C-alpha cells in the first residue's frame, strides 16, 4: 500500500530546497564581480536579476515552509532530485539573458550539462560570450562536480539534521570522516587547493604559449574547473583545439586524472599513504579498462592510418579516450571527425570508456570503476568456485580504502546500477535513432550524455530535435544522481497522487 505524503513532508522538502537555492544564488556573485572586473555592463544586470530571482524564491520557501521535522530517507532523495532539476532551470536564466542561446530550453540544457559536469553544449557564438557568462558556465561545473548540495551544506550546514541522507542522495555513498559536514568541507579544501595549483599551472602554460597574462589566468582557472570536475566546457568553440598546444593537452590529461580519483583516495594521498593508490580496486580497474579500451582505439585508428604518427595518435586517440573515460569530454578534434575519420572500432572503444567512467565519490559519471571491479571479481570468484571441490567455500577479497570481503550485497548493488546505466545508454540511443540518426552515432551521444562525459560526434547542436534535447537533459540528470534519488522522486509523486 502506498502512503500518501503529508503536507508536512512537502513543506520539509520545500524548506530545504529554499536553503539550497539561497546558497547557490549567492554563488552568482562571482560572475557578477567578474562582470564588474571586465566592465561588462549588461552581464552585471543579468546576474543581479538572476540573483534576485534565486534569493526571492529561496527566502520565500524558507519563510513560508519552515517546519521542525525529522528528515527521512524519502525526504532526502526527493530534495536531491528536485534540487538538481530546479538549479539548472534557475541557473539557465543568466545564460538565456545573454542572447547566446536560441531558446530557454537550450540554456537549461547547458545549465544541466554544467551542473551535471557533462560538457555537451548548445551555445551559439561562444567565442563572443562575455567573461562573466564564461565564469558562470565553468563555475556551474565546479559546483556540480563537488555536489550542489555539498556546497550548500558546507556553508549553510549549521542546524541541518539528517545531512548524511542528503549527502548519499547526491550519489556519494562514501564518507571520509564520520561527520558529513567535515567530509563536505574536506572535499572543498581538496578542490580549492587543486584549483589554485591547477589554475596556476594551466594559466602558466597558456601564458608561455602566447596568451596575455590576464586572459591566461582566466583560461587556466576555467579549464581547470572543467577538467578537475570532469566537465568539459571550454571558453572557445574549438574546445582544447583552440590552444594548439601539446603541453596544455598534457596538463589537462593530468587534471582530468585528478578528477577521476575517489576523494577518499585523495585523503589517503594527503596523509602520506601513497601505497593506497596502487592497492585500490578502483585504480587497478581503471588502468585495466584504459589499456583495454585504448587498444581498441589504437588498433582501429592504426588500421586505416588516420593519424600516421605516434605523437598524433597519442594526441588524438589517447587524449579522447582519457577524456571520455574520465567523463570530461575535452576535445581536440571537431565533433564530425569521430564519424568521418574514426573507424567503428575506435568509436566503440571510446563509447565503452565513456560508459565505464571513473571512481566512486569523485567528480566523474558513468558506471564507475568500483562497480566494474566488483562485478568482474564476482565473476572470477564464481569461475574459481566451480573448479574447487563442492564443500569448499571460496572467499574473495578486495581493497577499497580498507581490505574488504566480497559479499553478495556488494555485487548485487553494483550489478543493479551497472544494468541501470546500460539501459539508460540504450534508451538514449533508441531515441536518437527514432530522430533519424544512425545507431553508432546515437549510442555515442547517448552514452556521452548519460555518463556525463560531453564528447560529441555532432548530434548535439541547437538544431537537433526538441525531444532529443529533453532526452539528453533527462539522461544527464538521472546519470549524475545515479538513479536512486530519481526513482524515489517518482515514487513520491505516485504516492502523492494515488496514496492513501
Amino acid at each position, binding site marked *: 500500500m502506498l502512503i500518501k505524503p503529508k503536507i508536512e513532508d512537502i513543506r520539509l522538502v520545500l524548506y530545504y530546497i529554499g536553503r539550497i537555492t539561497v546558497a547557490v544564488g549567492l554563488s552568482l556573485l562571482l560572475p557578477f564581480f567578474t562582470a564588474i572586473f*571586465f566592465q*561588462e*555592463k*549588461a552581464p552585471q*544586470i*543579468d546576474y*543581479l*536579476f538572476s540573483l*534576485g*530571482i534565486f*534569493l*526571492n524564491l529561496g*527566502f*520565500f520557501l*524558507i*519563510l513560508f515552509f*519552515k517546519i521542525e521535522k525529522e528528515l527521512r530517507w524519502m525526504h532526502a532523495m526527493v530534495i536531491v532530485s528536485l534540487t538538481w532539476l530546479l538549479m539548472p532551470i534557475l541557473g539557465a536564466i543568466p545564460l538565456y*539573458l545573454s542572447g547566446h542561446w536560441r531558446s530557454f530550453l537550450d540554456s537549461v540544457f547547458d545549465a544541466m550539462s554544467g551542473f551535471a559536469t557533462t560538457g555537451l553544449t548548445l551555445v*551559439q557564438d561562444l*567565442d*563572443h*560570450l*562575455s*567573461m562573466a557568462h564564461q565564469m558562470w558556465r565553468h563555475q556551474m561545473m565546479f559546483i556540480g562536480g563537488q555536489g550542489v548540495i555539498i556546497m550548500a551544506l558546507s556553508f549553510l550546514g549549521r542546524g541541518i539534521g539528517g545531512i548524511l541522507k542528503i549527502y548519499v542522495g547526491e550519489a556519494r555513498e562514501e564518507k571520509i570522516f564520520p561527520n558529513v559536514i567535515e567530509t563536505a568541507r574536506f572535499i572543498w579544501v581538496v578542490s580549492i587547493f587543486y584549483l589554485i595549483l591547477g589554475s596556476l599551472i594551466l594559466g602558466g602554460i597558456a601564458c608561455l*604559449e*602566447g*596568451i*596575455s597574462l590576464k*586572459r591566461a589566468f582566466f583560461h587556466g582557472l576555467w579549464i581547470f574547473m572543467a577538467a578537475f570536475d570532469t566537465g568539459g566546457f571550454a571558453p*572557445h*568553440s*574549438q574546445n582544447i*583545439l*583552440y*590552444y*594548439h*598546444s*601539446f603541453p596544455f593537452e598534457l596538463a589537462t590529461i593530468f587534471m582530468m586524472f585528478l578528477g577521476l580519483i575517489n576523494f577518499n583516495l585523495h585523503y589517503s594521498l594527503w596523509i602520506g599513504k601513497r601505497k593506497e593508490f596502487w592497492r585500490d580496486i578502483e585504480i587497478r580497474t581503471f588502468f585495466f579498462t584504459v589499456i583495454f579500451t585504448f587498444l581498441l582505439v589504437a588498433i582501429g585508428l592504426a588500421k586505416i592510418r*588516420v*593519424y*600516421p*604518427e605516434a*605523437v*598524433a*595518435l597519442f*594526441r*588524438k586517440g589517447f587524449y579522447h579516450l582519457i577524456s571520455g573515460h574520465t567523463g570530461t569530454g575535452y576535445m*581536440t*578534434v*571537431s565533433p*564530425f*571527425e569521430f564519424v*568521418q*575519420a574514426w573507424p567503428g572500432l575506435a568509436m566503440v572503444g571510446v563509447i565503452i570508456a565513456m560508459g565505464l567512467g571513473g571512481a566512486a565519490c569523485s567528480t566523474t559519471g558513468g558506471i564507475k570503476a568500483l562497480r566494474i571491479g566488483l562485478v568482474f571479481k564476482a565473476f572470477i570468484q564464481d569461475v574459481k568456485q566451480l573448479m574447487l571441490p563442492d564443500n569448499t567455500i571460496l572467499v574473495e577479497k578486495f581493497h577499497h580504502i580498507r581490505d574488504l570481503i566480497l559479499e553478495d550485497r556488494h555485487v548485487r548493488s553494483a550489478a543493479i546500477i551497472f544494468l541501470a546505466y546500460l539501459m539508460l545508454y540504450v534508451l538514449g540511443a533508441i531515441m536518437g535513432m527514432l530522430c533519424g540518426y544512425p545507431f553508432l552515432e546515437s549510442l555515442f551521444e547517448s552514452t556521452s550524455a548519460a555518463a556525463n562525459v560531453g564528447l560529441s560526434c555532432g548530434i548535439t547542436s541547437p538544431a537537433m530535435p526538441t525531444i532529443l534535447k529533453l532526452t539528453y537533459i533527462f539522461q544527464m540528470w538521472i546519470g549524475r544522481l545515479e538513479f536512486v534519488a530519481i526513482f524515489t522522486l517518482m515514487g513520491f509523486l505516485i504516492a502523492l497522487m494515488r496514496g492513501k
Partner: protein
Amino acid sequence: MEREKKDRLALVLLTACYLKMTTLSFAQVISSQELIKNPKEYAGKRIVYQGEVVGDIMERKEGVWLNLKDGDYALGVFVVKGKLPSIKFLGNYKLTGDFLKVEGIFSAHCLTHGGDMDIHAEKVEVIREGFQKEEEMPLLQKLWVKRLFVSGFFLFLGIILRNFLERKKWKQKLRK
C-alpha cells in the same frame, strides 16, 4: 587531320589544367563548415579561407597561431613569423575582430602539429578591420532588479523576524 590533332591536344591540355586546378587548389573561398564536414576532399590542398580573428594571437617559436571564425565554426591558422599583417582587433565580447583572408595549405591531420586540423598560411591579408561593439543594455531586467531586491529584502526581514519570535517563544517555554 592536322587540325583535328591540334584540337585534341588542346582539349587534353585544357582538361589537364582543369584537373590540376581542382585537385591542388581552390581559388574560391571555402567555408569552415565545408572544410570540417569534408576534410578529405581538401586535405593537402591550397585553399582560400576567410574569417574573423577570435580570442588571442598565440606567438610560438616557429610562428604564430590564430583562430579564424566564419559562421558557427572556427579553424586554426598557422602563420610563419613575419608573414602576419598588423592585426588591430581580436574578436571577443566587446570587439568584433579583424576579418582576414588566408591562402594556404589545409591539413585534415597536420603532421607537424600533432594531427590538428589546421591551415598553414602562405598569404594573409586583412580585408576588413574589426570594431568596438556597443553593449545593449537590458532595460527590462534593470527595472526588475530593483523590484526583486526590495521584495527579497522584505522576505529576508520576515525570516529574521520569525526566527526572533520563535527564539523568544522557546526561551519563554524554558523559563516556565
